[in-house]
Structure formats: structure tokens, C-alpha cells
């Protein structure tokens, strides 16, 4: 579970990245977090991973109250979170199998368990044939699936996917979201951060819109026919027309 109570983050430069955020994501939820570049999405992720601290307010992630968390306990918190990055961040000198297995080695899992669990997770993302390949031998979609398998392998309570479809073809994007959805069906909470409104339009669900460091919308929408999603798209287009630099960031 993720809970933010009246959380603000102000960087040392004086920029208010998040302002008085109140947010609760329950166990088993699937949430889209949308917003333009610079809206505060990345700050939110950094906050949940305790890469940065809130200037005020309380943040609770998977039972850890982050303001009380000691530096030593950060690895413990991160082991309950699976993270998927836009740029995959796979270790190029490790095979697919090793990239996934090393997460279990980090938590000192028994070898037997690693030998059983890793092939299972690889099969979940459909990459059995690529287990011994190196990341450079994979397509963008495949690399992202490895990243998802890595995020999934130690059975985290929460998966944070930061623009997971940002570096792959649109048709593969749907596959990735489908994969995250199916993981969510098994009970894992998924928070997918994206600025691809088309994806959000298609899948629907709970959508949190962050704009200029504030949550301006947090509700459940039904999918491609939903009026809000249309509005969201229209508002994005008009926002881009007002702030053309957003188009640059998105591209």
C-alpha cells in the first residue's frame, strides 16, 4: 500500500516539485499516473523509492513510514518494490537469466529457489528462448519484458513502471501494459507512470493526473469510450499548444 499525506517536496533550487499531495493506492490496485513533463511524476517515484525525502508530510510504502526509515533500511524497502524504467536499465554484461537472478541474489535467496523461480518468471514474460541472450541481442520490447521480469522476480508488493512504453513501438506498448495488467491480476499493486494518453484511453482504470506538482484528477475511468479520457486528450493537446516545450519533452 502507498499512502501520501499532505506531502510536499521542494528542491534545494527552490522548485516546488510536489505540493500538498494526498494519495492512497491500495494493495492490488492498478494505477496510471499521468502528467506532462516536469509535472512531478519522477519526483513522486523518487519519493516512493526514498531516493529523496519529503519536505513535509508523511509517506508510507508497503508498511514502511519513509520519514522514520534509516539509511540502512532502504534496501529492505526497495526489496518490496519492483521498478521498471523507460530505458530498461539492464546490465549489459549479464544474460537475461543473470539480470533477473541477481535480484534474488541480492536478497540472499537459496540457489535452489533461484534456479526454479527465474525460469518461471522468464516464462511469464514469454522469453524462454532468450534466457541466455545478452540485452544487446534483444529488441526494445524484449528488453522491457526482461525489466518487468526482473521487477517481478522477488514477488514485490508494488511494481512501479516509469514510462515503460516510452522506448518501444506503440503496438508493443499494449503488450507491455497487458503484461503489467496480468501481473496485477495476481495481486501485485502496479503504478504505471506514463505520458502516453493513448494507452490510458485504451485501458482505463484508476487515473491520477499530476499537474504542476498537484493531483488535479484521481478517479476510475472505464476505458476507450470514456468521456474523461477524451477530455484528457483534448486538455493535453490544448496544454501542448499553450506550452510547446511539452511537445519537445514528449517527443
Amino acid at each position: 500500500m502507498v499512502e501520501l499525506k499532505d506531502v510536499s517536496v521542494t528542491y534545494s533550487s527552490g522548485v516546488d516539485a510536489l505540493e500538498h499531495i494526498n494519495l492512497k493506492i491500495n494493495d492490488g490496485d492498478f494505477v496510471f499516473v499521468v502528467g506532462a513533463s516536469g509535472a512531478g511524476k519522477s519526483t513522486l517515484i523518487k519519493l516512493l523509492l526514498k531516493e529523496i525525502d519529503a519536505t513535509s508530510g508523511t509517506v508510507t510504502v508497503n508498511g514502511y513510514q519513509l520519514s522514520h526509515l534509516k539509511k540502512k533500511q532502504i534496501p529492505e524497502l526497495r526489496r518490496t518494490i519492483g521498478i521498471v524504467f523507460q530505458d530498461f536499465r539492464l546490465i549489459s554484461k549479464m544474460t537475461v537469466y543473470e539480470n533477473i537472478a541477481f535480484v534474488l541474489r541480492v536478497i540472499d535467496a537459496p540457489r535452489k529457489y533461484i534456479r526454479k523461480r527465474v525460469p518461471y518468471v522468464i516464462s511469464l514474460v514469454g522469453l524462454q528462448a532468450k534466457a541466455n541472450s545478452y540485452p544487446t541481442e534483444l529488441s526494445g520490447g524484449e528488453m522491457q519484458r526482461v525489466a518487468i521480469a526482473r521487477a517481478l522476480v522477488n514477488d514485490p508488493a508494488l511494481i512501479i513502471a516509469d514510462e515503460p512504453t516510452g522506448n518501444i513501438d506503440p503496438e508493443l506498448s499494449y503488450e507491455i501494459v497487458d503484461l503489467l495488467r496480468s501481473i496485477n491480476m495476481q495481486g501485485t499493486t502496479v503504478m504505471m507512470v506514463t505520458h502516453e494518453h493513448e494507452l490510458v484511453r485504451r485501458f482505463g482504470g484508476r487515473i491520477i493526473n499530476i499537474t504542476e506538482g498537484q493531483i488535479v484528477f484521481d478517479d476510475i475511468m472505464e476505458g476507450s469510450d470514456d468521456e474523461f479520457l477524451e477530455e484528457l486528450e483534448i486538455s493535453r493537446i490544448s496544454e501542448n499548444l499553450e506550452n510547446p516545450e511539452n511537445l519537445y519533452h514528449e517527443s
Partner: protein
Amino acid sequence: MKVSGVHYLVGQGIENIWKNRMMAFASFCALLVSLVLVGISILAYQNLDSMIGGAESQNEVIVYLEEDTSADEINRIGNEIYQMQNIADVMFYSKEEAYQDWEDQMADYGILFESLGDDNPLIDSFRIQVQDIRYMNKTVSQLEHLDHIYRVRAPYDFVAIVTQLRTILTWVMSALILAMIFVSIVIISNTARTSVYSRREEIQIMKYVGATNAFIRLPFFIEGMITGFFAGCGALVITWVVYDAVSGVLQNQVALLSVIGVGSMIRFDAIYLPVAFAYLLGGALLGAVGSALSTRKYINV
């Protein structure tokens, strides 16, 4: 951490050397150069110091005895001198021996000796070598206070030169060794930082998936230790070859050896064990600590 975990991390450290072989080779070279620089500087200092020691051992203090000192008195004085501190060697040099040697040295001037007839103008003496010439003054003063001593002659000029030489050598070589150590630290830390920089993403990923700092550092530590160990082996071989070559050249310089003494140069086979130990341990430690510390910047994610 379980034994299997440590085993895995040690394995990773070894594997990483091959996977990052270019950077490992750069670290190896940096460590090798640093060890050789520092090692040869220290050995040069030790040898120069030993050579000065060799020259030092040729010091000679002459204690002239009063005329008519009896044989018993001479014996007693000899024993007293022998039991004094800072005395390396005592040799009685009778006036007859002195006369004979003098005569031999001045063989061309036989007429001079004829004029002396049976008279021996020389006096008995003790030839003494002191252990540490820094305390020459004190020793001479003690000798002067003995009974039946006519005069004590000490090589003060020699002592002054040698002492000054040793002081200069100690300062110059200490500065040089410190400079070499400083240069080595700069080289090693820069190479280690570059090596870690090239793998910063790997470290960040490990942090994101919940790796502890120890988990991240241990393979770097092992990797650095192994690289450093091999650099130590390389440095040992280079030092051995250079040392043998230099001492070979010096051993042939008869004139030089007559000044510094044949035994003044330290033979490599007499010191190879401590040198090898210092190189291997120093290399392994420097490599391990250098690379583990360099991860610090990227570990705080």
C-alpha cells in the same frame, strides 16, 4: 549474508575482472607503476643508507697511551674500553708494531730510521671502531677520562660528513618516497574511479533492487584485491630484474666498492621475502581499498 552469498560475490569479483578486462588492465598498470615507484625508492634509500653505514664502519678512533704504561695496565684499559657502550671493535697496537709499519711505509727513507738507532719515538695505542658515529663525541669523552690516556684522536671531519650525508639522504629520500606514495594514490584513485564510473549504472540498478552497500562493494573489493595482487607479482619481478642489473653494474665498480665497502649493497636474495610480502600485500590492499572506496560516490542512490 550466507556462505553461498559470499561465494557468489567472490565469484562475481573474479568474473568482473574478465568482463571489464580493459579497465582491470588499466588498474593493474596503475598499481604496478605505483608499487614499482615506491618499492624501488625504498630499496634505493635502504641501499644508500647501508652504503653510508659501510663507510661509517670504517671509522677509527685512536687512543694513545702514556709512555711507560705497564702491560697489566694496558690489559686493564683494553678491557675497560671493550666494556664501554658504542664500541664495535678494540685492537691493541703496540709501539713496536707501529714502528715496524712505519718503517715499511717509509722503506725509501731507510736513512731516517738509521739515525734513530734503537730509539722508538712512537707510543702504544688502541685502535677502536665505534658502533654509531652519531655518539662519537660522547665515546671520545669517556675514553679521555680513562687512566693513562695520553691523547684520543677521532675522525671528526669524517663523522661530520657522514652524519650530514645521512641526514640529507634521509630527508631527500623521505620526500621522494612520500611524493611517490602521493603520485601512486592519485594514479590508483583516478583509475579506480574511472573503472567504477564505467559501471555506475550497474551500481545504481543494484541499489534500486535493494542491494546493500556491502553486496555492491564486495565484488569490487575482490576484483581490486586480485588485480592488486597480480600487480604486486609484476612489481616484484620488475624490481628483481632492475635490482640485479644495478647491483651487477655496481659490483664491478672496484673503486666505488672500496669506498662503500663490498658488503654495503644489500643482496636481493637476502631481502626478497619481505619485499615480496610487502609488494603482494600492499598491491592487494591498495587495489581492494581503492576500488571499494571509489564506489562511494555512486552508492548513495
